[in-house]
């Protein structure tokens, strides 16, 4: 589905939305180009190519502005950056010092040299992809091949949710609804739906389609709450772990929600597709 079509569809369903739906996705958009005219211009090199950018831009934005591809996962141009997946890590060299930074958050600086595919970056990105794959087995094949990921190096613990936080940020920043959030720490961290809010708000969200599902790269979020308005009188547990959904559910969700914004994660190799 092209962007235009998607936008058209969004508009058509606008009338059916309740209070939550009023906040349009576009309104949260962050400018890729400088917002202020007076922003200072900086010059840097990315992979040897001279790039002009404005102060306040991130490395990722600067790279994208000249068509250099950096893989991302938890980044969404219309949501605030979160810096959790580290897939967009790049090497920044200033003088003799080199460090690895998350390009989605690192502000551009004058005179720095950026390497998006240095030996170190490629090696780390491979490891990160392998780690993502332990949770979500269907990471895009091309990307895996590009970085030479060896599936099966780590123990699999498939639970579909890769904790990218896109749904949480979408719900709070775009919808201002805060129906979703993280609970737990470390290995126990998970995304949950807060039923007392969800039951009131989710069925109205994006015309009953629940917008969070459309940003989820793994299709883990069930559409259960779209059908659980007060009128359905369903009883719900207190906190609803998103990841409790099994493989069949994930597959079904992926097939029914076609509104993809993260095409690379969805793999052609996915079973049943």
């Amino acid at each position, binding site marked *: 589905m092209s962007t235009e079509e998607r936008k058209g569809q969004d508009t058509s369903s606008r009338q059916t939305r309740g209070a939550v739906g009023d906040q349009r996705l576009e309104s949260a958009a962050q400018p890729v180009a400088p917002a202020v005219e007076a922003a200072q211009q900086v010059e840097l090199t990315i992979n040897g190519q001279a790039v002009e950018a404005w102060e306040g831009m991130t490395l990722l934005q600067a790279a994208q502005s000249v068509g250099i591809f950096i893989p991302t996962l938890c980044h969404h141009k219309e949501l605030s950056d*979160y810096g959790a997946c580290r897939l967009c890590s790049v090497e920044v060299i200033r003088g003799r010092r080199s460090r690895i930074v998350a390009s989605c*958050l690192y*502000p551009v600086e004058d005179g720095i040299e950026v390497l998006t595919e240095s030996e170190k970056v490629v*090696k780390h990105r491979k490891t990160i992809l392998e780690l993502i794959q*332990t949770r979500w087995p269907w990471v895009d094949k091309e990307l895996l091949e590009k970085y030479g990921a060896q599936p099966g*190096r*780590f123990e699999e613990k498939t639970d579909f949710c890769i904790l990218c936080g896109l749904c949480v940020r979408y719900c709070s920043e775009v919808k201002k609804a805060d129906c979703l959030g993280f609970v737990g720490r*470390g*290995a126990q*961290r998970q995304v949950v739906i807060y039923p007392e809010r969800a039951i009131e708000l989710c069925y109205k969200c994006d015309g009953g389609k629940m917008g969070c599902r459309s940003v989820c790269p793994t299709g883990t979020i069930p559409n259960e709450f779209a059908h659980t308005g007060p009128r359905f009188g369903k009883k719900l547990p207190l906190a609803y772990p998103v990841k409790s959904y099994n493989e069949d559910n994930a597959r079904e969700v992926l097939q029914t929600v076609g509104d993809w914004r993260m095409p690379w994660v969805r793999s052609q190799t996915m079973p049943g597709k």
Partner: protein
Amino acid sequence: MAKLKSLLDLEELRKSIVAARDPSKLCITICSGTGCHAYASEKVAEAFSSEIEQRGLSGKIDLRRTGCHGFCERGPIVVIFPDEICYLSVKPEDVSEIVSETLIHKKIVERLLYVGDDGKPISNENDIPFYKSQIRIVFGDNRLIDPQSIEDYLALGGYAALAKALFEMTPEEVIEVIKKSNLRGRGGGGFPAGIKWETTRNAPGDAKYVIVNADEGDPGAYMDRSLLEGNPHSVLEGLIIGAYAIGANQGYVYVRQEYPLAVDNVSVAIDQMRELGLLGEKILGTGFDFDIIVHRGAGAFVSGESSALMTAIEGRVGEPRPKYVRTAVSGIHGRPSNLNNVETWANVPLIIKHGADWFRGVGTEGSKGTKIFSLVGKVKHTGLVEVPMGMPLREIIYDIGGGIRDNKKFKAVQTGGPSGGVIPESLLNLPVDFDELSKAGSMMGSGGMIVMDEDTCVVDVARYFLNFLADESCGKCIPCREGIQQMLVVLNRICEGNGTDDDLEILTDLGDMMRDCSLCALGQTAPNPVLSTIQYFREEYEEHIKNHRCPAGVCKELINYYIDPEKCQACMICMRNCPVGAIEGGKNIVHVIMQEKCTKCGTCLEVCPPRFSAVSKLSGVEIPEVAAGGIKVR
């Protein structure tokens, strides 16, 4: 007490406090730090107080509950001034004897003294080897003052540094002195405090904050705790001086909820300061306003990370955020915020009082001053030690710590808490400072120092720390969350004897990636225990993987207990003590361990009489077959 409205008021008050005290008067000080408190020091204190009353000595003898002295292993510690006679491991039963002998008849109770290796008792606290090589500029006042008494602190010259800063120095001069002293952050990173202060001062914004980081959470480390419990005013004085230099009017003390005594003492101290006008509006009659809020942490290790701590103060979940823009520029509520840990702040009044050159007189090229370490593990004398930067590890462990307990062999020392590294014997002469430790693959951290003997398995140690970090990682970024978990999977596999040849490479790959790519310092340093043990003890990992042998005999899956039929005297002791009934045999019948039933608790090894020593621990070898019940003892 009336509010102090000028420098003169402060000095008058100090004079009146000092004048009312007689330095030759007998004073019993009882360490009431957390360590001694756990040894029931309060009961000892109560016993002293009732004993003094019963003997009609009230008024003639002072009784003071002080902060931690450091020699926690031998608590409760009682020191009697002015002769500084130090009694160790004092019990309430000993009190009556101490009062009648020492306080009335001026005799020393020898059995409570420290006894040196040569068998000679030592009475003066400062002569005990544990204290002798220490330089206790920061920690030394702990033993002299009651932490809940601001008079005690003032009597020792407290708040004179603040007065000096406020009345004789401009904020820029204060920063200049701190910069010149090269005071580096004692919380782990070792960032120069003066430069951080300057950045915060120069950052745009009206409202600025200064913060004490007292969220010390490393297993086995408690130096910040003891300092805040024992001498809260020294930390708070440093904080006010910092606030004055930086231009902040609001300070925070972020202290762990799990440190109730520290919370109490710091809150009492703040109330006393407000009462005296050392906090609030127009401090000491100057135009400088400042106040402090105590913020209690909710039990997350990661909240000790500066950005996570600031997020927590804002009232949100304590998760780190990227620090590409420094917290000195954008911290609490996006405002310039300067965070230093407890020990760093406590150094500030000393530097202001004595000058930068005095401070630089101790230490190494890159690290000046002293550092407090919590010396724990398998050393003879555990406790808190303050040593000059650059003291070799060997001196700390052998001269101060007294060497390894039970005459075992030294194996390694872990510095810097869970994210630090393990340092082997070959590096024992390493001078301890920020740069040398990180060169060795470890770090200063906040000053944890865990000594390990030959019975420690380094793979198991790495696994222990990773286990801790797996629970304490906030779980936000993939390298840290998934990396730690996968490292644990591999380490568990190795400890269980299922390691593969690729495992070391997997661990190194993961470790390198975590070090470079993690969001915050917790993730970046999390692989240190693993990487440093692989670096220095690679052969021990290989033993586990290739020969399924745990050289230290720790990893349960790789060891077996075995009774040598030649040595067994069929005494039935191990049989009776085995909690799972895994030993067969009988009177006059050699005992045999049923391996499939054995839970490897080691009880049989412990209880087998040393004159027989028939039970042994095997690892990496076949268990010799012994027919159960077949052999009679000759």
